């Protein structure tokens, strides 16, 4: 698995100011599968996923040690064009964050900033992306409506479709269902299972049941340490570490 890993995380330490968040984390994320980053609040799982598309660059006090190799290149190498890289590595956030614009413009934005102007091509991509995001049937008659008129679950699927529109290879989900009700959550999870056929997916969750439902591999993080990384089936039936077991059985977290 390590040879073909999309991300090879090697001895990653990360800090916000003087506070260390991740402690010597090493982990390989395999292609076309769902890898869950699981753990209680404050374990560093969000920090870790935000390293994978360098979203942490926005935090002035952030710094890191170690390497993240993405398809052979060091993500933090000076030659890496961050904007180009982020087109390949899309992200869906904790709270749905559609732009205060129409549904159509939300999806088209990623292409517009790349200079695409051809209206027909844009329409094609918008339709295709919304279909892949399992939202097309619900919004096809009102593409010019404000994205803010959609329900929370629809907004989150819109954000997924928006990420798909720029043709990424990887999609990072940072607790995508934490602001949604169970029905909307089920739809997103269904969608994630569908998407893993074509995309490499990493998902942050504190919800063990969600990790069990959607992921092929699970990394359990606790207080900045990677405690265990296993195929999800193995970890949930026979956890090696007592802390993993305690978390899975609901003793804390």
């Amino acid at each position, binding site marked *: 698995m390590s040879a073909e890993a999309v991300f090879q995380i090697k001895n990653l330490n990360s800090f916000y100011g003087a506070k260390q968040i991740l402690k010597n984390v090493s982990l390989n994320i395999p292609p076309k599968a769902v890898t869950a980053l699981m753990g209680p609040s404050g374990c560093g799982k969000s920090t870790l996923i935000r390293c994978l598309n360098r979203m942490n660059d926005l935090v*002035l006090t952030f710094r890191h040690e170690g390497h993240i190799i993405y398809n052979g290149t060091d993500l933090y190498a000076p030659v890496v064009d961050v*904007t180009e890289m982020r087109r390949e590595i899309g992200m869906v*956030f904790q709270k749905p*964050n*559609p732009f*205060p614009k129409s549904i159509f413009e939300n999806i088209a*934005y*990623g292409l517009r*900033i790349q200079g695409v102007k051809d209206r027909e091509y844009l329409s094609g991509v918008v339709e295709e992306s919304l279909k892949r995001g399992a939202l097309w049937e619900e919004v096809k008659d009102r593409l010019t409506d404000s994205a803010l008129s959609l329900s929370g679950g629809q907004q989150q699927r819109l954000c997924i479709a928006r990420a798909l529109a720029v043709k990424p290879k990887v999609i990072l989900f940072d607790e995508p269902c934490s602001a949604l009700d169970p029905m909307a959550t089920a739809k997103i999870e269904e969608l994630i299972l569908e998407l893993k056929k074509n995309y490499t997916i990493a998902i942050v969750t504190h919800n063990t049941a969600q990790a069990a439902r959607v992921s092929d591999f699970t990394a359990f993080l606790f207080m900045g340490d990677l405690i265990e990384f296993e195929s999800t089936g193995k970890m949930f039936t026979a956890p090696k570490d007592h802390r993993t077991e305690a978390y899975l059985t609901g003793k804390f977290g």
Partner: protein
Amino acid sequence: MTKNQWSKINDRIFQVVGLSATFFGLAVLAALLIDVFTDGFGRLSWQFITSYPSRKPEQAGILAAWVGTVWVMLTTALFAIPIGIGSGIYLEEYARKNRMTNFIEINIANLAGVPSIIYGLLGLAIFARAMKLDRGVITGGMTLGLLVLPIIILSTREALRAVPSSIREASLALGATKWQTVRYQVLPAALANIMTGIILAMSRAIGETAPLIAIGALTYIPFLPTSPVSVSKSAPFVNFSLQGFLDPFTVLPIQVFNWVSRPQKGFLINAAAGIIVLLVITLFMNAIAIYIRQKNQKRW
């Protein structure tokens, strides 16, 4: 009496004090308005708006003053809006949080509180004297521009800060550059609030008198600044000119100030009428600002 009864009485007392404080302010304002309107309302007429100042109060008008106000406001806007929004964007979105930025921020906040006459002296020294622009429209406009610049910068920053960071993250995660994110997402989302700030800043500038007197704006102007566009009978038929920006000017508050200081009753009536015009313009601008703000109550 029990403690509970005391706090009820205290509560009541505070209500009465608060209410009377509010009404005191409103009553004074009402008295002023009634006074101005009874004096000046009858003087408002087409003749008043289209006449130059005169030695005879009944022939005098505010033409030069309101046209001068329009010219100066235009200059102020052209000068202060791009610089103000630009500085606001830089400080809020780009500047690193270091000592230099801190120093700039503190100074801008301080500038917002500097008495307006100081800006007048600054304008006199820099624009009128050092840059040799003399006492024309452009000197007045840029001086008032300096005066409102801190207000525009602060309100722009406020407006940008009100845009949730999730919008910035969404844009950056799609591969947008920082500038694209600011230009296509943050700025449009903040625009209504920025506009509100600008209009309020301009309505502050429109009533300023002291800085313009300091730079030596004239009080008696029987002509208008050169029109930027004029038509002639021979080629090239349409002429464009920037001369108007260098022409001397007066503005409404100066005209009012000038009339108030005259002994004749007729000029006092003119002053009241001038104040009404100025009030209407200011209230109109504030109304637009409130309208924009109400209409764009953000929903995220």
